[in-house]
């Protein structure tokens, strides 16, 4: 049994199904990522696990405690950082931290070691109101408040959304240090590039999980060949690639287009010839290994087409 066990969870809001038979399990001391866009059901799942919401069907447990019948035990042992900034904007940095420590019947001093590394960056601004902090600093303070009572399980709902690329990298380094202390972390993110930073991930969209596994494992199941085509102008290039024989789908990825191909039909050299023939110049085509985002795209297209 895992530290977090989710079994056939269903949650509906009126007619709308937010979670549709979701199951997965998180092992002790791993960083497990829920990867999916807005509206996928990530926050609903966190609220159920944090015992703030009752599921319509299914069961979930955290450290062996049932989320419905044994909620009090769970509340004591978890740290929860909700997606919306939920600290008191009018209280200072220091006051927020003391408030959360007090709620859990402890003090900042007693657990200072647990938060020292992150809090030391905030201490120069201890008297500043939380509402006046920058996005990255707010996230660090929220993380401190979720850690101040030494939880063994940490729930982080989109901790890096709207946070810039530099602060995101810093935040992940902090998570690794927390994990090394034996804490189990369930984290959600809409950023696909953060998927590869997790030990295991679940890809979730519209309330259902596509796939669960290690990032490398999920990538290894990608069913097509993948070519990266670089050239300009991008939009005509994309449109042309989509018309080529053997190209299953094609999407832009940064400065390149990724074309999923049926390798028995087309490949690097054939596509190069076709691009030249269509008048494209100064382009390059190379074979690449897919990333998690390629897999997510492919799985979401397959699901949508399957439903039609």
């Amino acid at each position, binding site marked *: 049994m895992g530290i977090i066990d989710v079994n056939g969870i269903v949650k509906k809001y009126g007619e709308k199904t937010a979670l549709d038979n979701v199951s997965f399990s998180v092992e002790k001391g791993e960083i497990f990522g829920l990867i999916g866009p*807005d509206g996928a059901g990530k926050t609903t799942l966190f609220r159920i696990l944090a015992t703030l919401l009752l599921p319509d069907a299914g069961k979930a447990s955290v450290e062996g405690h049932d989320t419905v019948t044994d909620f009090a035990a769970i509340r004591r042992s978890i740290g929860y950082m909700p997606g919306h900034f939920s600290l008191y904007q009018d209280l200072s940095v220091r006051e927020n931290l003391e408030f959360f420590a007090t709620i859990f019947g402890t003090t900042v001093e007693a657990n200072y070691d647990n938060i020292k590394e992150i809090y030391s960056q905030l201490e*120069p601004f201890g008297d500043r109101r939380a509402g*006046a902090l920058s996005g990255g600093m707010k996230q660090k303070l929220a993380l401190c408040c979720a850690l101040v009572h030494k939880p063994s399980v940490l729930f982080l709902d989109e901790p890096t959304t709207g946070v*810039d690329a*530099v602060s995101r990298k810093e935040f992940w380094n902090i998570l690794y240090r927390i994990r090394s202390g034996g804490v189990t972390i369930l984290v959600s993110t809409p950023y696909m590039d953060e998927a590869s930073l997790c030990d295991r991930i679940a890809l979730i969209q519209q309330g259902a999980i596509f796939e669960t596994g290690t990032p490398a494992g999920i990538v290894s199941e990608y069913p097509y060949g993948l070519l990266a085509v670089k050239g300009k102008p*991008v939009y005509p290039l994309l449109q042309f690639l989509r018309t080529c024989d053997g190209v299953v789908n094609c999407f832009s990825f*940064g400065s390149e287009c990724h074309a999923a191909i049926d390798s028995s039909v087309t490949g690097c050299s054939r596509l190069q010839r076709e691009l030249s023939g269509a008048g494209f110049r100064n382009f390059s085509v190379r074979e690449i290994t897919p990333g998690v985002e390629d897999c997510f795209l492919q799985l*979401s297209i397959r699901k949508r087409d399957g439903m039609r």
Partner: protein
Amino acid sequence: MECDKIIKVTGLTKRFGNFTAVDHITFDVRKGEIFGFLGANGAGKTTAMKILCGLSLPTEGSGTVDGYDIRTQQELIKRNIGYMSQKFSLYPDLKVWENIRLFGGIYGLGFKEIKQRTAEMLQSLGMEDLRNEPVGSLPLGWKQKLAFSIAMVHKPPLVFLDEPTGGVDPETRRMFWEMIYRAVGEGTTVFVTTHYMDEAEYCDRVSIMVDGVIADLDAPDALKDKYGVPDMDSVFRTVAARRPAGKEAAGA
């Protein structure tokens, strides 16, 4: 020579008390380009963008947006630009056609014009069947497309997109960028902010704001060459990481 610059600002500065959010920035945006306005949280992007959209006056500096003065012609600027953000764009309780009518009215279009634009927009979006649906019930991808079209309901020459793809799924995000490409193909200038560095690659030029100043500005390829790194994510981290740690706590 002047006329191919749709945005032109010189020494733009905004202070709040003794905090300088935007510190003498000078740059221009060319007609018909996709201009990426990047920066860390609290770097001053939102403040600068508010001035460009005619919502806030600069403390110092001057400039024009679509030929209108940012100090004296704010109302004309507002009327002649489009604006869309991911956080607030459409009214979920209003139907598709009601949203179009509302924003068309706000931008001063007449009833006849609104009617005609509604028909045009719904047709080009393939959303004729959805005209009576409340916007809140549409899938995210449709909402995004509609929000973009509504930001362009008055056919502005310049549109500001403030993190239009935050939290959006990978496929919708890409479809959204293809709409941007089409709009640019029709001559619109696009000014866009994003935290997705792969999207920075889609821009013709990008600026990177750090602590209220523009730390660098160029085409993505030129920036990658300059810093000797393979992608915009590395460019951003190299440029943005230079900020002094003490300054980060300020601003929002």
